[in-house]
């Protein structure tokens, strides 16, 4: 059973935001109104921003550091523990997922998550016609599950899934072609589009995979390691 992990090399990241927008068009996250955006209610599962408190030094010896932030897919996710209805769960492949059909919109998880990567639908998403034409038709349904890119209703929390529907799709294709699924058949949209080739994705259980090797790097670190969440999204430090 693979354990999925992402490695982001901040040295190669150029803060272009392609990951944010690839995610938007893959996962149908809506554009919110300017007024909501000014309140900080944008829905981008993978956001890019200047790292807080890291802008150091006075002119001209100053430098801004940028961070790109998908879900950390923690091995010990705080969001799961607080969910009163088990709407959010970690699956056997290590993906922290969200069952929209179960979610009651209590937003405990958005508070519990130390990374701020859970997004609440305060309003039903709107796509001014004909913008809805570009929505990704992929979805996962069944047994009460409602996941993947299908547009979420008002009142539920949504989050990065490492594009779990792409995993399902790759499995379905392998099955249709009568062969085994290979881990390299699956990568999230943000990894595929990365302009600086800064993102790597793969199976952490395979010691020879790129992500396993990079995770051993002395540049590797995890966000807020001290809080004990054990993220599977791993960063490589800049300038070392």
């Amino acid at each position, binding site marked *: 059973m693979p354990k999925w992990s992402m490695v982001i090399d901040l040295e190669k990241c150029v803060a*272009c935001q392609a990951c944010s927008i*690839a995610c*938007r068009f893959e996962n149908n996250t809506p554009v919110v109104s300017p007024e909501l955006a000014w309140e900080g209610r944008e829905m981008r599962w993978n956001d*890019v921003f200047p790292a807080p408190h890291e802008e150091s030094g006075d*002119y001209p010896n100053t430098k*801004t550091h940028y961070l790109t932030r998908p879900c950390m897919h923690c091995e010990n996710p705080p969001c799961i523990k607080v969910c009163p209805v088990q709407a959010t769960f970690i699956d056997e492949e290590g993906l922290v997922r969200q069952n929209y059909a179960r979610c009651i919109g209590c937003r405990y998880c958005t508070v519990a998550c130390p990374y701020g990567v859970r997004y609440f639908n305060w309003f039903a998403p709107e796509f001014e016609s004909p913008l809805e034409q570009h929505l990704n038709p992929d979805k996962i349904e*069944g047994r009460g599950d409602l996941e993947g890119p299908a547009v979420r209703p008002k009142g539920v929390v949504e989050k990065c899934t490492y594009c779990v529907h792409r995993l399902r799709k790759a499995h379905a294709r392998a099955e*249709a072609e009568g062969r085994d699924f290979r881990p390299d058949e699956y990568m999230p949209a943000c990894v595929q589009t990365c302009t600086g*080739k800064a993102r790597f994705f793969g199976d952490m259980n395979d010691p020879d995979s790129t992500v396993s090797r990079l995770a051993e790097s002395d540049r590797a670190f995890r966000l807020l390691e001290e809080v004990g969440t054990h993220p599977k999204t791993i960063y490589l430090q800049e300038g070392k």
Partner: protein
Amino acid sequence: MAHFTRRQFLKISGATAGVAAVAGAVPGLTRRSSTIEAATPQFQTSGEDVIVPTVCLLCPSGCGMLARVADGRVVKMEGSPMHPINLGALCPKGQASLELLYNPDRLKNPLRRSGERGSGQWREITWDEAITEVAQRLNDLRQAGHPEQAALLYGETRGQLRSFFDRFMQAVGSPNAISKDSLNVEAAKLATYYTQGIYNFPNYDLENSNYILSFGANLLEAGPWVQRTVAGQSYMRRGRATRGKIVVIDPRQGITGAKADEWIPIVPGTDAALALGMAHVLIKAGLIDFEFVHEYGFGFEDFSTDGVKHKGFKNFVLENYDPRKVEKITGVPATTISRLTGEFAKNQPGVAMLAGKGGMLNGSIGGLYAGMAVHMLNALVGNIDKPGGVQTQRYMPCTSWPELSSDPVAEAGRQQQRLDGAGSEYPLARHAYQAVADHVLNGASVDTLFLTGANPVFEAPGGQRFIDAFSKIPFIVSFASFMDDSAQYADLVLPEPTFLERWQDDHIEGIGYPGIALRQPVIEPLYNTMNTADFFLRVAQTMGGPVAAAFPWGSYEEVLQYRLQNIGTDWDTLKELGVWMVPGYHPARRGNERWVQEVVGSDRLSAPRDGRFDFYARELSCALDALSPEQLAALGLSVTGDAVYLPHYEAPPYQGDANDYPLHLNVITLMSLGPVSAAANMPTLMEISGMTVGETWRGWVEMNPETARKHFLQKDDEVVVESPFGRVQTRLKIVPGLRPDTVNMPYNFGHTAGGRYAKNRGANGLTVMSGQTEPATGLAAFTNTRVRVRKA
């Protein structure tokens, strides 16, 4: 169908674009109904999934894209792994391009003005009416003997389109096919032309380079091929064993400077002095490539022609650009200049990069000299056409256009002076887009003006004067996908399909070796639109006579098939792959035949095409030699004699008194909104535009914290940015990585039209800029406006 790889999957689906139901043949990928009750979670997707290759047009990179068309709707764009510029990557603009295609403000039918100009009253007409009207108008002009009164302003024209437009205007009989190059890359192109003798933007082999001196070249945000420089810097950093160093010389740090190893905040407009100071160190320390400068350079040493002694580059630089003197001009310490120069010379191959759009080189004739000085650094260390150095872009051979038939009316028209003054009033200019407004206001007669990919009211500095100029032009036709800032003043607004719905080719540029990429309609056009090239074809055919004879093709697709018949592949393969190239860049051997034909000197019009790189610009000497000292002074030159033909520092002619207007205004291009004005109407891009400063949906002005403190200004204050030419209101953002004497405003805000997401969002910094045209080169003066900022 049992076994195929993803690659084959992509290929098959591309080959059968619009027909095959690839996914439909695969159980488990098909559409199911009532699966809620199924025992296990069920993955569902479209019934039919097709992948169609195409090329992006939201910046000049021209990245290859793969469009996923699901049940006839385009639902996702990915980077094409086969396109050499982006190699599978795609920036946020490309990802969001579906918001251009499915934009609610698209123009759907041809429109004719029914009220006053600019009143916003239109009535729908048919394409036949539009074609007849335009053809009649042009025929009338030809009959009156004044075909030169038709003019075409064009923006980003890819592949064959530029020569197609030029040919159309030539066939009609007008010299006025005017490119907006003078707003961005022209300074760099001219700089390369007057030194290396190639009229093009140089390529840089970043992958094999060890050192980058970026003179305002905004590697990671904007530039002629930003995706190419992003990939290059990423590879330089971590893609290979040795890590290259990047030095960013720019008044603004930006993302490029933040990611670089060193940021040099230079005094705006003094790049020429810095580059020449570096040349001084190179020469004095003996770090130059002696073989190159002597055997393949011209004018490095003093020389004499016909008994007249001329000063060479070496002595000129040694006399005038001691780093201690340069320090006073540029604000860069002499020790830093010496250290950087030593690093540059000792870590070859390395490149000194020119700015395209987004630099602070443009603005005066000093911009041309700055470009020449920067480019000469590459020549001094001898890395012209070397791995890791400067490459010359090679192109696929296109079948020549057929000869135009004899046509006295058109021939006479083509001999007339150009409307923009390029080549006459502005002796060094190829294009002077922004000057069209001034010439029209000064009485130049234009009867019919075509705008395609051009939105001069918005994108030219001081562009609002185009509105007055338009009122003097009887008939204006705008080709646009949106009712943009300029189209709203037109008489005919003709809806153009977006780049995802039309045929257009692309010369792949930025990689050195030749290649063609192809845009094709990934779906049937959504609305009653017509490709602008097809419109001109039909106008030509309706006009009849020699104009019709010049265009014997049925459609623009046929034009492309004709022009691309000898590139080494057939049309169907090109459509299937979306890209065709001859990979591998092969540097020419110094001095041999290919060197002379492709690398140095081949574009020179007057100076010898002898394969010598000019340190003393002979081509410039041919162009300016006949001018008197007064005439030279009128071109903005403070020097006479040999110095005119040698790169030197000219102080920028700033507009606005330094005491009243203490700050330099720099309008920056963002990775998110990019250089194409229609991108401002894509809501996702608006949303992410202000990432670096924590802003969204509205523009801003960036200021150094110390300057803000002196002005008693704080973050998010509403401020007025004021110049002698106007004022705009916007929000203040504090940015430590910025010179205290410079403020930045992002481009692509402050539209007065163009759709619901673009209109009235933020302020357009270009409106407070001087609309002047640089008198020698015809470049727009982007960087010589001073402003003051005060609380609103």
